[in-house]
């Protein structure tokens, strides 16, 4: 049976867990991010994804401390992204205890960065993150810096190049759907999963369990990210796992 990974996505600004809409309009959520991460791990989410959503504005990697605090008590895979620009940043992230890094801006600006990370640390550590925005003509373009910066790169074209260069996984976030709770961008999910033979994580838009049915029926996704519904406790991890299992996908026993 094919598995489906359920990923808890925690967007971070400074010391806070935050949640926005379309990656903007940020709202703080009370409580330490590492405590939320631990709760999600214990409730049966499969992986933790931390995204520093302001880091790229400052050219820094700032989540070392958070990752270090997290992995004291979280024994599932942790991915960290946001502001990773150099091999030294990647090394810091991994040495803090992260298992994988998610890279967007730096990779799209200088695609060789993907090869450098893959050859230094292995493809398994590298998740290439893509922020996709639907265009009036129907295509999708890549953005960076939480949807603020336009790159002109077409999404499918870029993820295929990223995979060729050594991306171990691809994380696709729909800027249009993100934070809306109106469901995933199904066409985007279908395009990307058909276009690459690496694991694809779909992010942005989950609001209710039916949205899981829709994305699984339409696209061969490997993993799905959840944020809003978890942080506001609208849908329980156990309910997500049960729904995934009822759709014929293997999830972990908890």
């Amino acid at each position: 049976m094919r598995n489906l990974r359920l990923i808890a996505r925690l967007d971070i600004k400074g010391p806070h867990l935050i949640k926005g809409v379309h990656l903007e309009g940020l709202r703080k959520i009370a409580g330490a991010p590492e405590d939320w991460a631990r709760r999600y791990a214990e409730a049966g989410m499969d992986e933790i994804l931390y995204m520093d959503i302001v880091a790229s504005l400052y050219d820094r990697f700032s989540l070392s401390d958070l990752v270090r605090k997290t992995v004291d008590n979280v024994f599932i895979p942790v991915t960290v992204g946001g502001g990773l620009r150099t091999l030294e940043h990647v090394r810091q992230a991994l040495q803090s205890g992260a298992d994988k890094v998610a890279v967007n801006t730096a990779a799209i600006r200088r695609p060789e960065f993907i090869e450098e990370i893959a050859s230094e640390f292995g493809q398994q550590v590298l998740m290439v993150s893509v922020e996709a925005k639907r265009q009036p003509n129907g295509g999708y373009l890549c953005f960076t810096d939480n949807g603020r910066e336009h790159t002109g790169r077409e999404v499918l074209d870029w993820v295929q190049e990223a995979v060729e260069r050594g991306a171990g996984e691809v994380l696709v976030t729909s800027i249009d759907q993100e934070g809306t709770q109106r469901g995933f961008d199904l066409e985007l999910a279908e395009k990307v999963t058909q276009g690459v033979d690496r694991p694809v994580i779909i992010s942005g838009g989950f609001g209710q369990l039916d949205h899981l049915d829709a994305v699984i029926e339409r696209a061969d996704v490997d993993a799905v990210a959840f944020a809003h519904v978890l942080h506001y406790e609208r849908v329980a991890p156990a309910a997500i796992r049960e729904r995934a299992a009822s759709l014929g996908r293997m999830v972990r026993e908890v």
Partner: protein
Amino acid sequence: MSKRVTVVDYGIGNLLSVCRALTHEGGDVTLSGDPEVIRQADHLVVPGVGAFGQCTLELASRHLREPVLEFIQTGRPTLGICVGMQMMFDIGEEFGEHQGLGVFPGRVVAIDPRKADGGRRKIPHIGWNRLQVPNGRVWEGTMLAPVQPGESVYFVHSFSARCERPEDVLATVDYEDYEVVAAVGRDNVMGTQFHPEKSGDVGLRIVRQFLSL
């Protein structure tokens, strides 16, 4: 009482998670690439991340191959994790043929990306998968004693062991109709293809059990 355990540091990958899981379960952890420290260990963990050939090369160039083999000879508990388990086999086929430690007869081969029905099987195998007991095997008395068949553990790998002796296989998982050797064990030597340090509560139970052997 804490149990002394040495994690072999041969310059490969992130060993922090492994050390933390051992510490969490009461291990008194030493991270070392010193042959003498390795020979003196009570329990030995051989981690491994990346490619088989690179790992065996690093191990050899740091003069750690013989100390690890000597440690195994003493009968004390040894655990290989991921590529650390793969290295216990005769041969690895990742980026050419490479000689392993030869503790378990067999080869480490690429997972077949084609399914029998013509569909594709995504490589690497990433994610949680359910442990199964091979026919005739029991987990009692092994590091898997506290685990129930069907419990899930976390995998990230593209290559998989093929055991010459079926009795070495402690657990398998089914990756879309491809049988993955998930754990091997014979006497004092054990290996997991999965990452116990990333497998939540199930993984921690396995770590605790290893430390109690």
